[in-house]
């Protein structure tokens, strides 16, 4: 039974991976990636790593893939022109040869060493090893520091993402002044052109259009901001 399950999941994983790189439509690529990740989760279950399997489904096949689908939906998932790498024939030949060489090397290494273990028992299984309960305990005892560092890493990654995303318009010193402080936020109406939700929805005219439409000030005055 386990063997059957292994081969189904294994074939699913490989087919999914091949699909990701060969399919032309990005939407199908994402779906192939989802099937690849689900098959991987099944393989993890076979290894009795329930936590990793669940994390794989929830985080990767779930959350991350939903993000991918959103991105594909935004930028348009239609037929994209095939990407042609800007390299000549000779370079592609060399790349192919290198790939072949690497493949042969990997085969030699795998056949020479890895397959020896196929008939053996494998690593001993200790009941409870890798179970969610044990992982939770380890995260709060032995691996407390890496766990906390990971939380700090997420914080600083979010800060970094904001830093990179905020100034895409290329605003300089003037933009600096337009940035809202917490105090100003509490005080009341936002200045024009700060990209507030009301601007995006068109309720009040945004910064760039402000000059072109004549009745900005009166509109703002009536509405009392956003």
């Amino acid at each position, binding site marked *: 039974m386990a063997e059957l399950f292994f081969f189904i999941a294994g074939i699913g994983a490989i087919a999914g991976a091949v699909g990701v790189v060969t399919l032309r439509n990005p939407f199908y690529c994402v779906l192939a990636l989802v099937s690849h990740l689900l098959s991987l989760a099944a393989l993890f279950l076979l290894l009795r790593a329930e936590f990793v399997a669940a994390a794989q489904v929830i985080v990767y096949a779930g959350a991350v893939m939903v993000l991918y689908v959103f991105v594909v939906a935004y930028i348009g998932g239609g037929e994209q022109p095939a990407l042609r790498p800007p390299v000549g024939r000779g370079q592609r030949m060399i790349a192919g040869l290198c790939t072949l060489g690497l493949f042969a090397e990997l085969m030699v*290494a795998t056949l020479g*060493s890895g397959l020896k273990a196929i008939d053996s028992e494998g690593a001993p299984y200790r009941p409870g090893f890798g179970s969610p309960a044990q992982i939770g*305990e380890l995260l*709060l*005892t*032995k*691996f*407390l*520091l*890496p766990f906390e*560092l*990971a939380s*700090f*890493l997420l914080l*600083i*990654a979010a*800060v*970094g*993402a*904001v*830093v*990179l995303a*905020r*100034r*895409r318009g*290329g605003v*300089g*010193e003037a933009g*600096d002044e337009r*940035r809202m*402080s*917490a*105090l*100003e936020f509490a005080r009341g109406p936002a200045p024009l052109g700060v990209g507030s939700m009301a601007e995006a929805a068109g309720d009040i005219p945004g910064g760039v259009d402000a000059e072109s439409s004549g009745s900005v000030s009166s509109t703002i005055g009536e509405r009392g901001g956003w």
Partner: protein
Amino acid sequence: MTPKAPIIDWAGLSPLVALLGGAVIVLLVGLLRPRFVREVIVPLLALATFATAAGLGIWQWGEQISLISGALRLDQLAIALMWIICATGAAAVLLSWRAVAPREAAHGEYYALLLTSAAGMLVLVAAQNLVTLFAGLELLSIPLYVLCATEMRRETSLESGLKYLIIGSVGSATFVYGLAFLYGATGSTDFAGIDRALNSSSLVSDPLLLTGIALSVVGLGFKASIAPFHQWTPDVYEGAPTPITAFMAVATKAAAFGAFLRLFDGALLNAQADWGPALAALAAITIVVGNVGALGQTSLKRLMAWSSVAQAGYLLAGVVVATKLGLQATVFYLAVYLFMNIAAFAVIIIRERQTPLGDDIAAFAGLGTTAPLPAAVMTVAMLSLAGIPATAGFIGKFYVIEAAIDGNYAWLGIVIVIGSMLSLAYYLRVVAAMWMLEAPEAPVSTVTGRPALAGGDLDAPAPGAGIEVYAVAAVFGVATLFFGIVPSPLFDLAVKVGSSLTSLF
């Protein structure tokens, strides 16, 4: 069975807590409205944080303890490297005081990223557990990717950030793959456990272990820019804001070599017969590639990037031999590398802000007559990087070569000497440009060295090089000379550090 909570030694953990807490404070203070707070108080707070962490290190000096169930090791090696990292961080704060990058990225965020990166480096050099090691590597790298791209209106800065992100991710992935193999082969994530497993069994020729070693060498090699994993270095160093380049060049190298020392000379010491020759070959390749690559460069930041590749080769020689002398030599060289590199980068920043030529070597023509003081500092830094006697670089190189010969790698010592001879060609070119060329009459109109700003214009007033940049240049330049003539304080420090890895002799 109720799980036992780990003992948290707050005193030992205090430098790390100081850096991370300082990052949060800087981030929050950066949100305040007044311009004075953002542009003066925030950098001052960042400086104070680095000073606090270094001071707490002085307080903890001499301790040899494991923290939080073996996640970190606080010993002289960790503290000495933390001083190097904090000094680099403080210099980077001063160098970016009037720079464009913090204004573009908002001051609070910029300095918080810098502090977090330094905290990640501290974790990396103190880690004695594979999981902590990887967490430290990521905590170091991710803020740096963002920092490289903080001059957002300059295309090359964005390019450098993206390149560093992609190549750094490949390095991280390779590294974690290697760590997984090491865990698989030895059955332990603790360095002590790995050491025990290698000691007690015939694991040394196990393919799993060898694969793990090879992959983790590649991963750390990416971070330390060891050839052939160095290709990103010139592009990223050239594109990043110069203060960040200085920080990356010194602190990242110190952190990566700290990890090298602890992982290879500590945990994997019994497998030295496996990785020793491989690392020695990599060191030799790195020295040759770095020095040859630097020969044709005209951009000084690219030149420093190639030079840092070559220096990584010299440093690797101290790791290869796996002796106490090698450990001491590596730490000594890292300290020396801090002085000479920061001095050079400070002068590069001065010229970058004064001339439209950017970091091109032409910006240095005739500097000896127009501004003798920066020219003198640059000269000292270049001579020290080349390893001329009476500078600290000479003592450092001498120490490394001595360690190589003592550890039966005499041929590697010869490669280092040959590499230094090659390096004279490009270091002296800079010196010659400063003292032997005429200063250009009028400011050159063709703006070659300074890349065009993406979507921006140049009408913003160019930030001048303030007193703080000159101060950094002077302090680190004088230190380069001082420790070249009186190296004994640094020697004593290195000898004390040598006692932290007890398995070496």
